């Protein structure tokens, strides 16, 4: 029995009592923040988005590892750098220099935490030390592991800190700029940040203060912080409200942005008052094989047969309603700048699959999330594999439980879907496929094959990180994809394209960064620019 399920059951019994007692950590209301001064153009009093799912408390230790969880945390906490459409920009840091292994950041004047305490280089240093002792959910420094990229730091003055890294590479600046700064005066006496709900547990360094959080209903409210040092928030409040049907709620004006079903896209595109954000092939589904539990599949002929057994175009046509493409066996989506057209293509060939699999008497359990698309894809996989002679039992759990089970290796086959496949550069190739870097941190982008090792893939996946020349790095990524498509450490099912739809006259600040297409999860989307 997975520990998370036991915990969930216990929580389900205990939570109502705790809530009744008014002492639940999953429910939080803070004193009011925010500015009542004159509002600039483009500002809106409140932005409302679809809630209803508990993505954890929005602090670096208690948020869920998936995009919607870390994005809420990143509203409350700020990092040294941020990403815009073209590259890395200053956030808490107003400037930075690089010299050999030394990266020196200068904090903005007036940088402060949400309780009014100044944010200094000592807080940045403390954050690194604290993360090494207590790794956060989102961990770009790889703190607390042997791979931690920071070797040591030097506090130069109150606003300046030099971070000395072990091995600088193409991602170092981005990674150093991406960890969220926490207040020393709050956390220095906290021994267990993963359960701490005392004073200051949601006091952040970002542009938004969490003024309400209710886990059971998946409700969040963030209020703009007056005089945030790195910019002006585009709304007074951001609210994530539970809705029964997102599209109906959008039509009724209850939320201001939502996804558009593929069947209705053309109908809505005719409306000129609506704006759209396209996320091309950004969502992807992969089939993980736990080779420790299913050693038969270490035989590559069986993995090729699994590809042949699956009608992946049916997933695109039926589940994605045509909005997407069959996944490249090299993992990187076909629309990516880094995609290699030389990857091996595996066509749907049920007869060939049956010829290999039928007499093997195989039986597997397929773990999936209980959301609509995941179950539908799992059912199609079950139908196809059973036609090829593999008995399949589908088990579905909520997304958080599924992720915990995958991270714990508690599965035979697992269907994992997540966003961010369109990231440029596709650094996830290292965290999914490198034997050194995979399965660390609990994020879907680090869920790699268990019980499978490949030295050649590992070498290429790690080598691309050290390459700073764009073309050379792209060439390594492409070679790596070809190798992945040949060796099949996991099965890539399909990529889904989607659109977000918003009312332009309400708020028009939604943006995609050069690395991430999910506009609702980019904090610059909520700033006036």
């Amino acid at each position, binding site marked *: 029995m997975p520990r998370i*399920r*036991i915990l*969930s*059951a216990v929580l*389900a*019994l205990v939570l109502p009592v705790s809530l009744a007692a008014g002492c639940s950590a999953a429910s939080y209301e803070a004193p009011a923040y925010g500015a009542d001064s004159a509002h600039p153009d483009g500002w809106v009093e409140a932005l409302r988005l679809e809630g209803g799912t508990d993505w954890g408390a929005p602090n670096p230790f208690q948020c869920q590892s998936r995009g919607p969880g870390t994005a809420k945390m990143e509203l409350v906490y700020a990092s040294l750098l941020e990403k815009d459409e073209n590259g890395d920009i200053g956030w808490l840091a107003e400037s930075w220099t690089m010299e050999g292994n030394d990266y020196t950041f200068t904090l903005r004047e007036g940088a402060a935490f949400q309780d009014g305490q100044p944010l200094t280089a000592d807080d940045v240093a403390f954050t690194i030390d604290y993360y090494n002792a207590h790794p956060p959910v989102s961990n770009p420094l790889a703190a607390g592991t042997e791979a931690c990229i920071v070797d040591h730091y030097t506090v130069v003055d109150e606003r300046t800190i030099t971070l000395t890294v072990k091995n600088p590479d193409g991602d170092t600046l981005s990674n150093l700029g991406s960890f969220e700064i926490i207040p020393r005066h709050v956390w220095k006496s906290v021994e267990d940040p993963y359960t701490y709900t005392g004073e200051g547990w949601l006091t952040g360094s970002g542009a938004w203060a969490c003024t309400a959080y209710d886990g059971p209903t998946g409700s969040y409210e963030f209020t703009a912080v007056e005089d945030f040092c790195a910019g002006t928030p585009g709304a007074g409040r951001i609210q994530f409200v539970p809705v029964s*049907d*997102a*599209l*109906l709620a959008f039509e009724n004006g209850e939320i201001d942005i939502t*996804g*558009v*079903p593929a*069947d*209705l896209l053309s109908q809505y595109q005719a409306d000129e008052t609506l704006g759209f954000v396209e996320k091309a092939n950004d969502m992807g589904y992969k089939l993980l094989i736990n080779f420790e539990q299913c050693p038969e599949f270490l035989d590559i002929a069986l993995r090729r047969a699994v590809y042949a057994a699956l009608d992946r175009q*049916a997933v695109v*046509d*039926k*589940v994605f*309603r045509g909005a997407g493409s069959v996944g490249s066996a090299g993992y990187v989506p076909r629309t990516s700048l880094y995609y290699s057209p030389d990857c091996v293509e595996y066509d749907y060939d049920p007869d060939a699959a049956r010829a290999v699999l039928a007499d093997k008497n195989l039986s597997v359990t397929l773990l*999936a999330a*209980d*959301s*609509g698309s995941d*179950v*539908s894809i*799992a*059912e*199609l996989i*079950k*139908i196809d594999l059973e036609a090829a002679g593999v008995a399949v039992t*589908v*088990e*579905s759990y*909520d997304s958080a439980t599924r992720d915990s089970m995958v991270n714990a290796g508690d599965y035979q086959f697992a269907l994992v879907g997540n966003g961010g496949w369109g990231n440029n550069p596709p650094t996830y190739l290292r965290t999914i496929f490198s034997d050194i870097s995979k399965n660390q941190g609990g994020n879907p982008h680090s869920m790699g094959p268990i019980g499978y090792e490949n030295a050649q893939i590992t070498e290429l996946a790690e080598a691309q990180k050290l390459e700073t020349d764009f073309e050379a790095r792209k060439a390594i990524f492409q070679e790596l994809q070809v190798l992945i498509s040949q060796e099949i450490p996991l099965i890539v099912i399909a990529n889904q394209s989607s659109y977000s739809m918003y009312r332009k006259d309400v708020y028009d600040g939604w943006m995609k960064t050069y690395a991430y297409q999910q506009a609702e999860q980019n904090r610059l989307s909520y700033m006036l620019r």
Partner: protein
Amino acid sequence: MPGKRNRARWRPCLILCAGLLALTLFFGWGVLGWPCSPTQPSGASLEAPSAAHWLGTDDLGIDIYAQLSQGFFASMSLGLACGVLTALIGGGLGMLAGYKGGGVQAAVDFAVNVFLAVPQLPVLIVLGAFWGQDRRLVIGLIAAFSWAPVAKQTAAKTRSAAHRTYVRAARSWGAGSWYIFKNHLAADVLPVVLVGALAVVGKAILQESALAYLGLSDPTAKSWGLMINRASRFAGIYFTDYWKWWLAAPVAALMLTILFTRLLARWLEQQLLEGDV
């Protein structure tokens, strides 16, 4: 005119039984005679109703009539299994408590009160999530939360019947418990048990659908609750025509089946109160 009055009294029962029979035949054809599979795609995605697919297809292209038909027998068998278990547990404990009295009655009364006081659905959800997605488990859980009302009514009826003069006389002449039950109590008590169990059938179908809707069942099973779940979670379904066959069909099937079984149980209960059954 006693004959005419009698016919009028039985008419609702005949209509309800005819309705259940019609549903059984309709869905029986879907299982035995219909060419489409309830588990394999047999058409395009979300096809509207046609001669080839009477109730259209779902997003995966699987025939909805075939799925509904399989769901009917799955739901009915689950409901009947729950009814039988409830009759055995509730009826047995109720008769024991009503007949023996004293400490046995106190113990059964305590258990009945505990199970009546516990909110059923939240506990079913927690236990379902905790123990997994097994159909036998669902039957056991629903029966475990359904026997108490039956036991309470059965105990009251048994107590009342057991205190009748002729029963006491039989006891004093040395008649055994089985003899007394068979000859003096069964005719009074068994109808109460049967009516209670029949009421559980409809309730069990609804509860299983609720659990399936909440995702606490085999995610690929062709249960009505799961069909409603999958259809209602299809993004934008209310802005398309798909709901007319994908969502409305299982909702209508569920409503009709529960309506017929609950009304039949209600009619039987009424006859019982009037002393005609």
